[in-house]
C-alpha cells in the first residue's frame, strides 16, 4: 500500500495543529459556531443527534493491520469501543467529545490516516472496488490511480468550494463492485489495443434525484486521466447550480445541459489546461504503483481447506457465501460479515477490529479492505489457512455466512444518529435480519440485496437495492417506502417505487410478502430475485405487497 512521504507527514502534522488551535479558539469563545462549523467540517467533524461524529477517511477502503489496530485504540480511548464502517468506505465514531478530537486526529496521523475531505463541498474520499488487487476478474488494480486522484484532489485550491460534494469511484474490473455508475465520476480501467486506459462516466448519483451516470469518454489514456478529471471538475465548478443545493450535484448539471454540451465544455477546458500536466503526475503514478506491488504468494498445502469444507457444514456454508475468487487459484478473498443477525450493519467493536488486524497480519499479507457494503475484506488468504481464519472469526461473532444474502443489508445510521435523517434505518435492518434468520430462509432465497436509507439523501443506496427501503416522516410517524429492482452493478438501474409506504410495524411483513412472492414466482432456484423481477416486472410483486388493492382490482 501507499507509504506516506515526509511531505505527507508534515502536511498532516501542520493541518492537525491548525485544527487544534481552531478547537481551542471555539472553546474559549474566540470563534463563533458559524465561523467554526466550516472548519470542523473540513476535518470530518459533524454535530449529529446525540453527539459529535468524526468521519475518518479510509482511501479506496484499503488499510493495514497497524491502521486497523489504531482505529480500535481510538474507539476505546475516545469513543465507546466501536466504530461504524460506512458505504463510503470510511469509519465513523459516534461519540467523540470536541476537546478530544485533535488528539484523535494526531493518533490517526501516527498511522498515516486523517479525516480531511470526508465532509464539505469538495472531492470526497476516493472509493474503489474492495477486491482491488486480488480479484480474478480484474484488468488492473485500481488503487494506484485512486491514490493519484487522492493526492491530486486533497486540498486542491480550485476545488475546495464546489457547488456540492463530489464523489469519485474507480474499478479495475468489468464486474462493478464500486457502484461507479452512481458516482459523480466513475472510472473503469479498460484495455484497448493492449493499452490500459479509462472509461469515464459522469453524472451518476442517488439522493433526491437518482440518476445513472452517462459515458463521457469510452477511453481516456492514463496520461490524460488527471487533465480530464481536472477539466470535468472545473466545468462543474463553473456550471454547477449554486442557487439551489438540491440541484447542485453534477448529475443535475449533466441532465440540464446534456452530455454532449458537457463533453464539448470538458474538451475545451482540457485543451486549455493540458500543457500544465507535464508528466510529473505519471512519474508519481509510477512511484505509487510500486507501493501497490502484488504480495509474494506462497505455495502451500490447500488440503485443510478441502477436508474442512467436506466435514464441517458451517464452514462450508461460510465458504460458499463469504469467499470470492482470487487471481491466484491457491488463494481466496475473504469477506468478513459485519452483519451478524440482529447487530448493527457496519459496526465493529474494538476487539473485533483487533482480531481482523491480527488475522490480516498472520494470514493476509497485512492487508484489509472496507467494502461499500459495510463489510471487511481480507483480500489475500491462502486457501489452506481458511479454516483457521473462519474459526477465529466465528469465536468473535464475525463468522456469519451471509455475504450477498438477505441479511447482508446496507443501512445508513438513520435517525438513531444522523441529524439529517427522517426515520430510523438500523432497527429495520436488525429486524429483517433476525426475522429471516428465524425463518431459516436466507440461503434458500439466495442472492438478494436489501438497502435501507433513513432519508432522501440515500446514504444507504436504497435506489440500487434489489429491495430498497426509504425511511420518511409522514405526519410525525416513521414510514417506509419500498423500491424494487434496483441494481448497483455494471447493469446499474434505479429501483421502481412499489406504491404507498408502510409503518415500522408493517415493513417487515411487507418485505416477507415480496420474498415469498419471489419464491413462488422464480422459474428455478437458480433464478435470482433480481432476474425474476426483470423477467416479470413490478406487477406480481406489487400484488403481493398490496393484497387488498389487488383483490379490489380483481
Amino acid at each position, binding site marked *: 500500500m501507499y507509504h506516506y512521504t515526509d511531505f505527507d507527514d508534515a502536511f498532516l502534522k501542520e493541518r492537525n495543529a491548525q485544527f487544534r488551535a481552531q478547537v481551542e479558539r471555539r472553546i474559549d469563545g474566540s470563534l463563533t459556531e458559524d465561523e467554526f462549523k466550516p472548519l470542523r467540517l473540513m476535518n470530518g467533524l459533524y*454535530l*449529529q443527534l446525540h453527539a459529535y461524529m468524526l468521519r475518518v477517511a479510509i482511501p479506496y477502503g484499503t488499510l493495514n493491520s497497524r491502521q486497523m489496530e489504531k482505529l480500535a485504540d481510538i474507539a476505546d480511548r475516545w469513543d465507546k469501543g466501536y466504530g461504524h464502517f460506512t458505504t463510503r468506505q470510511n469509519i465513523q465514531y459516534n461519540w467523540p467529545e470536541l476537546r478530544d478530537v485533535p488528539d484523535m486526529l494526531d493518533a490517526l496521523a501516527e498511522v498515516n490516516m486523517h479525516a480531511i475531505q470526508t465532509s464539505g463541498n469538495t472531492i470526497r474520499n476516493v472509493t474503489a472496488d474492495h477486491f482491488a488487487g486480488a480479484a480474478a476478474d480484474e484488468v488492473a488494480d485500481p488503487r494506484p490511480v485512486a491514490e493519484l486522484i487522492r493526492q491530486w484532489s486533497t486540498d486542491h485550491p480550485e476545488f475546495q468550494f464546489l457547488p456540492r460534494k463530489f464523489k469519485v469511484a474507480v474499478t479495475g474490473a468489468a464486474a462493478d463492485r464500486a457502484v461507479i455508475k452512481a458516482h459523480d465520476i466513475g472510472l473503469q480501467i479498460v484495455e484497448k489495443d493492449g493499452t490500459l486506459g479509462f472509461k469515464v462516466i459522469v453524472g451518476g448519483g442517488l439522493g433526491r434525484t437518482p440518476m445513472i451516470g452517462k459515458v463521457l469518454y469510452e477511453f481516456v489514456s492514463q496520461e490524460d486521466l488527471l487533465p480530464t478529471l481536472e477539466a470535468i471538475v472545473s466545468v462543474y465548478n463553473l456550471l454547477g447550480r449554486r442557487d439551489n443545493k438540491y440541484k447542485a450535484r453534477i448529475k443535475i448539471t449533466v441532465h440540464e445541459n446534456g452530455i454532449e454540451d458537457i463533453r464539448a465544455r470538458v474538451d475545451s477546458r482540457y485543451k486549455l489546461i493540458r500543457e500544465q500536466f507535464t508528466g510529473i503526475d505519471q512519474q508519481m503514478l509510477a512511484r505509487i504503483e510500486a507501493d501497490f506491488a502484488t504480495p509474494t504468494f506462497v505455495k502451500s498445502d490447500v488440503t485443510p481447506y478441502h477436508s474442512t469444507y467436506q466435514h464441517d457444514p458451517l464452514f462450508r456454508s461460510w465458504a460458499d457465501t463469504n469467499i470470492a475468487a482470487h487471481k491466484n487459484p491457491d488463494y481466496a478473498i475473504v469477506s468478513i460479515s459485519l452483519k451478524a443477525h440482529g447487530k448493527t450493519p457496519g459496526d465493529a467493536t474494538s476487539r473485533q477490529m483487533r482480531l481482523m488486524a491480527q488475522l490480516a497480519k498472520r494470514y493476509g499479507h497485512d492487508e484489509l479492505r472496507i467494502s461499500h457494503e459495510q463489510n471487511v475484506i481480507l483480500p489475500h488468504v491462502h486457501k489452506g489457512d481458511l479454516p483457521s481464519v473462519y474459526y477465529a472469526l466465528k469465536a468473535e461473532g464475525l463468522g456469519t455466512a451471509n455475504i450477498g444474502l438477505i441479511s447482508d443489508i446496507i443501512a445508513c445510521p438513520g435517525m438513531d444518529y444522523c441529524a439529517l435523517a427522517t426515520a430510523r434505518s438500523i432497527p429495520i435492518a436488525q429486524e429483517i435480519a433476525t426475522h429471516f434468520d428465524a425463518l431459516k430462509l436466507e440461503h434458500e432465497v439466495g442472492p438478494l440485496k436489501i438497502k435501507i436509507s433513513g432519508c432522501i439523501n440515500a446514504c444507504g443506496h436504497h435506489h440500487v437495492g434489489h429491495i430498497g427501503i426509504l425511511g420518511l416522516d409522514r405526519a*410525525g410517524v416513521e414510514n417506509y417506502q419500498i423500491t424494487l429492482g434496483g441494481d448497483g452493478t455494471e447493469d446499474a438501474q434505479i429501483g421502481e417505487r412499489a406504491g404507498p409506504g408502510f409503518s415500522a410495524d408493517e415493513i417487515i411483513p411487507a418485505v416477507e410478502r415480496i420474498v415469498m412472492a419471489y419464491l413462488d414466482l422464480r422459474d428455478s432456484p437458480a433464478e435470482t430475485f433480481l432476474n425474476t423481477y426483470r423477467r416479470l416486472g413490478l406487477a406480481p410483486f406489487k400484488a403481493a405487497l398490496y393484497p387488498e388493492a389487488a383483490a379490489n382490482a380483481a
Partner: protein
Amino acid sequence: MPKPFTPKVVTANALLEGDVIYLSADGWTRDLSQADVLTDEADADLRLIEASAQVDTVVGVYLADVDVQDGVPVPVHFREAFRAKGPSNYIHGKQEAPQQEQL
C-alpha cells in the same frame, strides 16, 4: 387565523460533549423532565433569544414541541423522543448514564 401556541421546551446540543440539552429554570439540563415548559409564545421567544446568545456553551438552539403528562414534558415528535432517550441499537447516550446535573 394564527395557529394556537402549543407547549414547547428550549433545546440545543452542548458545545463540548455535543449531547442534547434543555433549558430549565436554573440553566441547562440533560434531562427533558427537568426542562422548563413554555406555554406563552412571547416568553418562549424571549427564552429562545436568551439561550441562543449563549454561543460559548451551546450549539443549534431551537424550540421543540412537547406534551405535558403528569406535569412532566414528553416529546411530541419521534425525533425528539430519540434525542431525549438515545439511539435504539445500543444503551448509549442518555439511557446509558442518566445525568440530572445542570451544566
